[in-house]
């Protein structure tokens, strides 16, 4: 049983069971595989690599009949789901498909319908700040791109949607987006028109 104060858990006085429990905890807490060196650092480098290796293989053995397994991959050790539980895990992803945040979706919508727009334009419509992170997420997904600058003081960057955005939506052109309503007035997608600047 671990004591209530982690300070009491001195690496040199750890019992094998405590050592394994800490290893388990740390491995689950890490979003990436953990190397032996990192694990040694976690214990203040007072553990021999030999003892660590033995504890890791004992821990792997403890999990032998469970739904997860402790494996070593190129970057280090990690817990992963076993193949035969994949159907359940997969249903989890179907049930919870990854989603972009409301902020990302709203930003994309404004760019799609009002392009070309500056960050200021988007903020004006959304009423809140648009972080660089949001723009980067959409750029990395390949749905928006920069398209020059508006010729006003500060020369803010203009954003437009990409061909890939249309492909991913199965559309042939931006005109095929359904019209929106804005306080009774229809909002039609604005085909990119650089001359308007």
């Amino acid at each position: 049983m671990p004591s209530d104060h982690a300070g009491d858990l001195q690496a040199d006085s750890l019992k094998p069971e405590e050592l394994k429990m800490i290893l388990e905890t740390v491995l689950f807490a890490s979003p990436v595989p953990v190397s032996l060196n990192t694990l040694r650092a976690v214990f203040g480098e007072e553990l021999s690599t030999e003892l660590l290796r033995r504890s890791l293989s004992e821990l792997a053995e403890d999990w032998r009949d469970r739904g997860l397994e402790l494996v070593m991959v190129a970057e280090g050790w990690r817990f992963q789901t076993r193949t035969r539980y994949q159907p359940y895990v997969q249903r989890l992803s179907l049930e919870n498909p990854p989603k972009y945040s409301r902020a990302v979706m709203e930003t994309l919508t404004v760019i799609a319908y009002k392009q070309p727009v500056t960050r200021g334009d988007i903020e004006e419509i959304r009423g809140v700040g648009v972080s660089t992170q949001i723009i980067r997420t959409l750029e990395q997904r390949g749905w928006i791109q920069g398209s020059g600058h508006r010729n006003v003081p500060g020369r803010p960057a203009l954003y437009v949607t990409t061909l890939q955005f249309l492909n991913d939506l199965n559309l042939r052109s931006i005109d095929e987006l359904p019209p929106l309503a804005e306080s009774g007035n229809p909002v039609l997608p604005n085909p990119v028109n650089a001359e308007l600047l």
Partner: protein
Amino acid sequence: MNDAVYPAISPALAKVRGQALTELPAGLYIPPDALAVYLSAFEGPLDLLLYLIRRHHLDVLDIPMAELTRQYMEYVAVMLRQKLELAAEYMLMAVWLMEIKSRMLLPPTPEVEEAEEDSDPRADLVRRLLEYEQIRQAAQTLDGLPRCGRDYAVACAIQETEKKLLPRLCVEDLLNAWEVMQARIPVRQPHIPARKTLSVRAAMEQILRSLQGDFFIEFDSLMMPEHGLPHRVVKFLALLELAREQKLEIMQNQPFSPIYLRLSDRNANAF
């Protein structure tokens, strides 16, 4: 009971006459050269007032305004000398304290006496002090709750078949996002009576025109206060833009002397 709220002052920061100060003084007297150090520990005038009230065992429900105002003004005086950028909020509070103090000096008129204790000029100050005190305590409690990343980590295992699932997109997502945005704006901008669009471009042309023929023009003469703040802001932006494009020169002989503008040489005959 609540002293822990005040952050410990770093000894390295607070050295007064060779002596390191590690906590706020308990007595009424605070060495003047140490005041500035204490001030950086406060989150604003309400925070400072609460501190004064607590340290000097004043009753927040029956504040001796003269005493509190006097002590508060000592701090403000130091602030004015050393932390000018902070002073505005503190000055506003000083004005308020003085107003309350002076209203308490006036003999009560019969109407006021009828209006029960609600008419205590200190009521609003007390309300704000108590409300802030509540938030300050709650912030400390909130800070103490176990927090992801600081006190614990979320456990995770990797899915064995690593398919990097990216969010997918359909047109309905865009429609939904639009609806949410529209819902946030129940009636679009109903009370902006007549919104005038001021063009920086137009202002730039106007400035260039007024500089035509004249060698120098005074900066102040461009900033016509009767046209209101938006006009002045746009004019100012236009000036900056013109200066950036090197269309005009801006000169000032010494700080606070008049600023003069004129067309730069290569633009002198643009019109």
